[in-house]
């Protein structure tokens, strides 16, 4: 009982850090631009498929694929921003919803046409295997994914805090008009923000592909999970995002072990709904 719980928590923590990374992409887009991207989960799905293509074409390990997929998704994010998102900024948020839901359907059905419905997976990663510590198993692939996720989150934090572009993004998030007066070109800043949000999913996609498979409808799950993490964390706190990701990850694995494998998403969603009721600004929200 206690052992199962501990094992679930260990696995949950590692998954949770990856969820935090996925949610980070959504968080900077929503936090800086106030844009609601319902297709975020599909970006993760696209990243996983690209990782699959690169990995199988070049016989690369999934973990290495982000070196190619990150620029691709950065570009995809940039194109998406200028073609779609930029035109919805001045509209009601329901227009954003309609556009991003359209994008979601589009990406999903293109994936269905290109890859058919059957799930795709890469060869076993070189980080396959596990470490035994005191009777508990730690899968090396998950550990690796968690560590890389943490490094990426730290790198993004550095970018946001120490570079001019990062400062421009934070300024645009706080007060767009004042930032514009200070010489921040908001189209460029927003474009960069959206592209970075998209590029982050490429890293997450590569990491996920090292131990998971992908299918055309799998994106929805990552989308909703990211919103759960975001609701829990609130906006503007990166450590909060990691903690929230871990809470969601643990809730998921505990539900699998102790309730029913089918209940896996039940726990995160219930937490999500309860948090919205009780702490609408999240546990660590800055604004």
């Amino acid at each position, binding site marked *: 009982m206690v052992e199962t719980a501990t094992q679930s928590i260990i696995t949950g923590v590692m998954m949770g850090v990856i969820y935090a990374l996925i949610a980070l992409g959504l968080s900077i887009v929503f936090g800086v631009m106030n844009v*609601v991207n*319902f297709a975020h989960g599909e970006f993760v799905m696209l990243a996983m498929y690209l990782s699959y293509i690169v990995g199988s074409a070049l016989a690369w390990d999934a973990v290495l694929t982000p070196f190619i997929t990150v620029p691709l998704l950065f570009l995809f994010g940039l194109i998406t921003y200028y073609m*779609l998102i930029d*035109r*919805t900024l001045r*509209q*009601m*948020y*329901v*227009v954003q*919803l*309609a*556009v991003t*839901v*359209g*994008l*979601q*359907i*589009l990406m*999903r*059905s*293109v994936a*269905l*046409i290109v890859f*058919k*419905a059957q799930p795709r997976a890469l060869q076993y990663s070189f980080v396959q295997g596990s470490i035994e510590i005191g009777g508990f198993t730690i899968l090396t692939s998950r550990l690796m994914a968690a560590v890389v996720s943490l490094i990426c989150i730290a790198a993004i934090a550095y970018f946001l805090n120490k570079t001019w572009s990062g400062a421009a993004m934070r300024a645009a998030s706080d007060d767009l008009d004042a930032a514009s007066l200070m010489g921040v070109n908001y189209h460029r800043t927003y474009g960069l923000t959206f592209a970075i949000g998209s590029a982050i999913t490429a890293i997450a996609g590569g990491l996920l592909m090292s131990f998971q498979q992908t299918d*055309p409808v799998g994106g*929805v799950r990552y989308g*909703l999970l990211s*919103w*759960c993490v975001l*609701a829990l964390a609130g906006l503007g706190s990166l450590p909060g995002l990691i903690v929230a990701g871990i809470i969601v990850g643990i809730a998921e694995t505990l539900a699998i072990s102790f309730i*029913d494998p*089918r*209940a896996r*998403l*039940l726990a995160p*969603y*219930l937490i*999500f*709904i309860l948090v*919205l*009721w009780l702490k*609408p600004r999240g546990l660590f929200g800055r604004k």
Partner: protein
Amino acid sequence: MDPKRFLNERSWIWLALLLVAVLVPVVFRSNQYAMVLVTTVLLYAVLAAAWNIIGGMAGQLDLALGAYLGLGAFTTGTLLIKWNITPWVGMLVGGVLATGFAFLIGFPLFGFKIKEVWYALSSSAMVEVMRVLFLMWDGVGGPTEVYMPTVISPLYSLRFNTYIPYYFIILVMLIGVIILNYRIRNSKLGYSLLALGEDEDAVEVLGVDSRASKLRALLIYAFIVGVVGGLYACIYGFLHPSFFSTAMSTEIAILGIVGGMGITYGPLLAAIVLVSLKEYLRSELGGGLEGLYLVVYALFLIVVALYQPRGIAPLVERAYQKIKSLFGVRADVKSQ
């Protein structure tokens, strides 16, 4: 409705539409596919018209439709399967249960003033929660499909082998929901809801209870969707947890948005255009590439949202004014 306004030109248009709607099954009665299509269009139209009450008028982007629909379907189906209770009663019970469930969700949500994207997402999550719960509840079928039996008579158990009776039942529901939309729009509740959409704090100062108004809109909407859910189960002839569908919930909201938020005939128009387009593309392109029809559908959706952000209803409104001026009728002030 006062008698002078009853027979204005807009009423004539509605009557003409009604006549067409009644004639459709007469024309297509031997064409099973066409009947499936028009029934589906009407089904989506009822749901979208109901959504208009909470989404368009109250401005709450509700994505929990699947939860109410599924509850209605499972209530109606289970009552029929276990206790031979007719779906005519089951639908009402389903509606009441859906209303109760909506109250449980809406009371805290509106109390904490959760708005916009968070309301949308939490209502969407609610559908998933319900789907998983019903997936695990083996007493009502769990993950298996449970078939609806025909007991006593087709009329008693609402199981027909043509779509024509379903078509007319939904048509009656649609007329009811559209009239309800008009009644609410011109009532104190309707004015409160519209004003709340503009400036919630200012309206509260004027003594409108925002929570109560939104809650009433939500409950009316949930009841209609619950009732339609019962009929949904009868039409499809089985029960399955996939009825709790986030995709369907989003699709109905999209119909409401694309039609034109808060415009009564908007959802009807969007349902006719988008659902027919989708089904037409499915039948034309479905054979070749799986998913291609959705690509076209998605592109259409994106283009409409980008270039007609207020929906397609204003477009029709303009065309209507133009036609009138062509025929020499003086263009009057828009009554919407």
